[in-house]
């Protein structure tokens, strides 16, 4: 009986922190809304009602997909105690190279799609692995090197390559959008509208649920198994918790650092797939910033596969709510404020929960000790 209550307490404690963070964010953003003269309940009501529409759900899932993959990429590093800030540069570089190479080759779909995915993962892994190599051979902190590599990738390589590789105005559906040569349809992941519509009504407004969602789910499963069910994952977690103990235990730290960065980068390479495999090319004005939001997603999701999924959905929901808030007269910035408060509150709440757990463990240990002592006395 004692153990089962402890388990329940632990689950409660784990869930309490993020829930408390969201509640705190709700309360504080209500105050902000009141200050700027909007009715918070009306605003939140609109957000929820909007989010319950099928088309909005498609928007939320489309937005959450790259956020989730980006969160997973960051989480790989975090579990090892590495701060890979370079997801941003890694995914943009991977996306443009994969889009270009993917448009050059003619393959059947069952080869074309894996080929593009593989190219994207390889580029991301190589670019991120470089930061890992710099760390183990030259002792350069990965925070510094990945920030620098971001600048080189985004303002340097991608800006250069987009000029080189852009087709003379890609026309899709009559709309001229500047970007790389379009990927043939065999290299595009079909949307999931047909599948979803089996269970719901027809998706209107021309919304398409990205098929990359499937890749995101697979990435989450692979991440979970890799971290929790493999020798490598055990080594990674051990190195993250106590690098010196891990080294003493025979885990080579340098190899682990490079491997963790490579795997993190391979996941990062997948982030841009929504852009290139859903719309079919790399646009001259791609969505940027997903790499940084991914860090927040990993943080809020406690670097766990399921946690990051919930965090990505929450962030996507807030992003998508920005429009409906504005049309109800509330400022758009409320969404950014809420996201910021949720992150801050989560960090604090996790720390509070961690301390509570430690006290709990100390207490159980003390109780067990007492029981043992009494037993000994009795004996």
């Amino acid at each position: 009986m004692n153990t089962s209550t402890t388990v329940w307490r632990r689950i409660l404690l784990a869930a309490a922190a993020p829930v408390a963070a969201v509640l705190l964010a709700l309360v504080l953003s209500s105050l902000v809304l009141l200050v700027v003269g909007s009715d918070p309940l009306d605003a939140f009501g609109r957000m929820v009602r909007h989010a319950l529409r099928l088309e909005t759900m498609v928007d939320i899932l489309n937005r959450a997909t790259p956020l989730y993959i980006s969160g997973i990429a960051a989480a790989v590093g975090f579990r090892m105690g590495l701060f890979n800030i370079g997801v941003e540069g890694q995914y943009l570089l991977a996306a443009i190279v994969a889009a270009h190479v993917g448009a050059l080759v003619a393959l059947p779909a069952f080869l074309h799609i894996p080929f593009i995915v593989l190219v994207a993962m390889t580029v991301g892994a190589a670019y991120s692995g470089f930061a890992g190599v710099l760390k183990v051979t030259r002792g350069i902190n990965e925070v510094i090197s990945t920030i620098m590599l971001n600048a080189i990738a985004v303002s340097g390589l991608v800006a250069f390559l987009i000029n080189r590789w852009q087709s003379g105005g890609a026309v899709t559906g009559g709309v001229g959008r500047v970007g790389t040569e379009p990927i043939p349809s065999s290299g595009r992941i079909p949307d999931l509208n047909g599948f979803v519509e089996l269970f719901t009504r027809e998706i209107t407004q021309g919304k398409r649920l990205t098929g990359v969602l499937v890749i995101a789910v697979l990435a989450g499963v692979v991440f979970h198994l890799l971290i929790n069910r493999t020798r490598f994952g055990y080594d990674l977690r051990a190195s993250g918790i106590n690098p010196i103990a891990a080294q003493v235990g025979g885990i080579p730290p340098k190899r682990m650092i490079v491997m963790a960065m490579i795997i993190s980068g391979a996941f990062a390479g997948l982030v841009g797939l929504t852009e290139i495999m859903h719309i079919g090319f790399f646009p001259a004005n791609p969505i940027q910033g997903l790499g940084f939001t991914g860090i927040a997603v990993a943080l809020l999701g406690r670097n766990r596969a399921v946690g990051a999924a919930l965090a990505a959905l929450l962030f996507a929901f807030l992003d998508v709510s920005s429009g409906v808030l504005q049309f109800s007269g509330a400022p758009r910035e409320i969404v950014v404020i809420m996201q910021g408060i949720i992150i801050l509150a989560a960090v604090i709440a996790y720390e509070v929960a961690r301390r509570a757990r430690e006290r709990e463990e100390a207490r159980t240990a003390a109780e067990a000790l007492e029981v043992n002592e009494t037993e000994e006395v009795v004996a």
Partner: protein
Amino acid sequence: MKKSVRYLAGLLALAMVVAACGDEGEGPGGDDAPHVGLVFDIGGRGDQSFNDAAAAGLDKAVAELGVTKSEASPNDDGSNRAELLQLAADESDIVIAVGFLFEGDAAAVAAENPEVNFAVVDTPMINGETNEPYSDNTAGLVFAEHEGSFLVGAAAALKSETGVIGFIGGVSGMGGLIEKFEAGFVAGARAVNPDIEIVRQYITAAPDFDGFVAPDRGREIALSMYEDNGADIIYHAAGLSGSGLFDAAKEFSEASGSKVWAIGVDSDQYNTAGDEVKDYILTSMLKRVDVAVFEIIKAHIEGNFASGPQEYDLSVDGVGYATSGGFIDDITDTLDDYKAKIVSGEIEVPTTPAP
């Protein structure tokens, strides 16, 4: 542990109390006056440029035409443009989007909402495959830039002391887009002084679009025009690269002791380029986004909404010149004479540059 649980319980209770006093308010709607949904480009109100101009046009329409309005601007990464257009369409009779980046999304959302009119600023909204408007309910708000450039060309010729003026284009060969500015500028300057020398240079040629975002190269070209060619006024149609021209004007003026000028483009750059360089900005060629927004709302109300490119020219003040700083107050009469002649058709401004 107990303490944190208590806090948590308190927080929960507070949230429930807050939640309990809610009412299900419905949004506005259902009245007779048309509703206008304005979707800004990233940044929204306060950018001192196209967004603010569009907002001014909408505010005027609210005041003078009695329309109701709602506004929104995209997330910082621009990821929700299409969603905003759809939300605007849900509650509006006409949706106006600021900036050519909305073209694709507006065409798609317009096709899904045939009963709502859509207007996008700074793009003709022409289907690239058929060369027709995307649909009957999509209009593009474009400007007679050559006519506005004519006036600032005339201003440059009137104000030049060396008899040499310059033109810096961002990117050449984009279907003659920037050449239109050059054509008007040259025609205007020569209308004042047929013998004036005009040095012209483009920063890059399409498909290299760096010319719009290369202030360093804009600065070098401008410095060479001031130093080597003896130009004392330079007009730019080079987007962000124009800031290099402004820096060069200040730099050369301070180094040589004789004041040289720059002419801005699109919005009143005296107000937007920064305090250090504003005293070197003689005037700016204005695209009056406010006029275009007001006019398209008016056309919608009067049942005259037409699809495809809607060009706003001097006759409706769709283009013009800025007087901020008061540097050209002495020649506005002459410029307004030219304007009247262009409006009456007496002067026809070319859209391709004379050699």
